[in-house]
């Protein structure tokens, strides 16, 4: 187990490092000039040259990368061009907002999607299940910005009971959470349904049923137990994806999280901020993945991490 953990941590660090290095190169290959984005209207060539020199943008790619690595190992990810503050601090300021939204959305997703998926599995191929299926497909097909704008129009304008944007009160969490969760619910409930249908048709369930085990126990203990790993994996993956920034939803609802920060960083070609965002979100994503892996043996005693790995 300890060896497994050490190896997984090593892999995680390598993953984050490679991601960061790839992003470092890609953002510099993309069109655009951070100096021009920074310099305000109608800058002179001298202004641009001065800014490039100040931020080391006048150096070659390899030289920039070397400096980046040197600073990275001292925990310095540079100063954000647009915020004039340490890039890592700017990102860390935003992370709690994204974690709050993601946790809230994934919790709502699990609370609705898992029972819904089970309900659909138990009524597989009936007209009622067909209706639920149509709803989940619709939910999966609607773009998040459209759902967001509809919810805003309904609950912030027509019946103004919830804040339209930002996170000044807890009420501000409701609409973005629901928007993110609707898409995830559709996905997860269909997955739960598929897994449960397969599990409920498995021989061990048939045997248990013949022994007189109740439907409730069959569903929630026997079948759900076997379906838990793929469902947990899917929930974890979705959660990790949300931590990378629910960009559209954050922009629509003025949510001060990492997603809206990424948009701004990209618009201004703020290299240090882009890199800091990638570092933090990639680290969070691999951490979530690691936690999910560690949870597997708890859900399925046949899984032995040390040996399996």
């Amino acid at each position, binding site marked *: 187990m300890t060896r497994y953990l050490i190896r997984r941590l090593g892999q995680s660090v390598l993953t984050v490092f490679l991601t960061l290095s790839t992003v470092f190169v890609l953002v510099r290959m993309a069109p655009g*000039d951070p100096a021009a984005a920074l310099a305000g209207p109608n800058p002179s060539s001298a202004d641009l040259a001065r800014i490039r020199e100040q931020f080391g943008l006048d150096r070659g790619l390899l030289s920039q990368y070397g400096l980046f690595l040197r600073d990275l190992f001292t925990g310095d990810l540079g100063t954000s061009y647009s*915020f004039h503050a340490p890039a890592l*601090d700017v990102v860390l300021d935003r992370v709690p907002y994204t974690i709050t939204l993601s946790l809230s959305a994934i919790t709502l997703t699990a609370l609705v999607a898992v029972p819904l998926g089970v309900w659909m599995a138990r009524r597989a191929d009936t007209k009622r299940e067909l209706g639920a299926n149509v709803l989940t497909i619709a939910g999966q097909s609607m773009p998040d910005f459209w759902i967001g704008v509809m919810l805003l129009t309904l609950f912030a304008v027509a019946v103004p009971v919830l804040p339209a*944007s930002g996170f000044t009160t807890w009420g501000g969490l409701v609409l973005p959470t629901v928007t993110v969760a609707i898409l995830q619910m559709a996905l997860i409930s269909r997955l739960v349904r598929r897994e449960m249908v397969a599990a409920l048709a498995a021989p061990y369930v048939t045997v248990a049923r013949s022994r007189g085990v109740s439907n409730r126990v069959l569903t929630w203990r026997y079948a759900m137990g076997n379906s838990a790993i793929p469902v947990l994996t899917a929930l974890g993956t979705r959660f990790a994806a949300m931590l990378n920034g629910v960009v559209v939803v954050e922009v629509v609802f003025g949510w*001060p999280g990492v997603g809206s920060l990424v948009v701004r960083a990209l618009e201004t070609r703020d290299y240090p901020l882009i890199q800091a965002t990638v570092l933090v979100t990639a680290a969070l994503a691999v951490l979530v993945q690691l936690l999910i892996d560690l949870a597997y043996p708890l859900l399925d005693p046949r899984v032995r991490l040390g040996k399996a790995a």
Partner: protein
Amino acid sequence: MRGPHRCPGPGAISLGLNRSLVSLDNKLNQFDAAVTVQRAVRQALTRIGKGLRPELVLADRFEMTGPTAWTVRLRDGARYSDGTPVTVKDVSTALMMYAGVNGSFIVGLFPEMPTVEPVDERTFRLHTKRPVPILDQLMANILISPAARNRPEELSGGVGSGPYVVTSANSGTGEYTLDVNPRYWGRRPTVDRVRVRFVPEESSRVVAVRSGELDVIDTITPDSAEQLKGLPGVRLDRTSGTRVNQLFFNFRKPRGHPLADARVREALSYAIDGEALVRDVLTGSAQQAEGVIPLALKGSVRTGRYVHDPGQARKRLAALGASDLKVKIIWESGEFPADTSVMEAVLEMLRAVGVRASLQQFEPGGDIQQWRQGRRGDWDVLGNGFSVPTGHASTSLQGMYGGTAEKEKTRDTYQGYVFPKIAARLADASAETDEKTRNTKLAAVQQQIWDTRPCLWAFVPDVVLARRTRVRDVRLLQLNSYDLAAVRLEG
């Protein structure tokens, strides 16, 4: 019905900005809406007020006492929120710090930075090498901070001489709370608390002001203004602006190229139906330009009108041997409201007179700067905007039309616009200390610029702000700013 959780509360006002207020200093971070908030915390010697006239703020005297010298006296009792007085040293330090910061465009507005000569505790002289007759307007952009705390960077601390102090700040999220400065030297504002929020998405700002969550949103696009017009509880404030949006010709065309000929440029402009663009695309939120700079600017004059006459365009282009012209139009996305729709309409208008046009749009932060400098390839017309926070014609004219051969060596002219005689006359007019003579000279040179036909078309967008009706006395200025201390709340 309005949910109580969303109301900013009695005595508090909530502002929604379209761009993040990164700092309450403005050395680098200067955009219209930010200045409204920044000036509530930090002040300058002067400000640009109603009618774009300079008004005294931290100075109670600011007058030209020689061709290259101004005498300034600090207001008696002007002090910072920490109780310390505003001093002459603070002014000289502020000038040094603005000059020392990289990437500031405030400094670019000054023909030269003045030096400070102290006279007594409150009085000093500002000296320049050449006359700078609008120095009182230029100095409105230099916010003063205590010398000991000033740095050549944006200041994160909130010590200032303004009517408000910062009680909470998160520059990362762009959210600030300002409370009344109990030590303010001037009249106490009636609004106790100002909440500033960054709401980047325009539709979200519109929804928030409709629902009462935000009290004031600014920089409204024509579409949003249409949505908000006539809604109960919401009022639109509108005034003529000081920004000009232009379809500016590329003046780096080689001799012999059709677009190097002012007559061809003029002929092309006949193809553009500016009235239709203003009416249908910009939904009446702009005026066609009638000069080379906005008429709201002090010292500007009418020099001509854009006339739509496609028959004339065809005839003249044919006479000039430019009937089969191809035109490439470039612009940065979001350069002005409804930019894409304007460009697409222009393309059709040019096509209607036989000119084949193509469009190339750049995302913000992309390569537009290199294209402007002619380093990325050829183009013919650039969608561009130019605004100046001094409110004076000469700043705008020099910025756009004061190009010289020396500047062009580094491609620092405005789209290659280099007319040595015009540049010389502009420099002469801008340094003229007698206002009447200066205005006469400026008028003459504006006509001369118009005759070079620099733009395919140009328009001046209105400045529009939306507010809840409980917010009163928002005296929206042409610079797209207002005095927060003068705002009142009802309810």
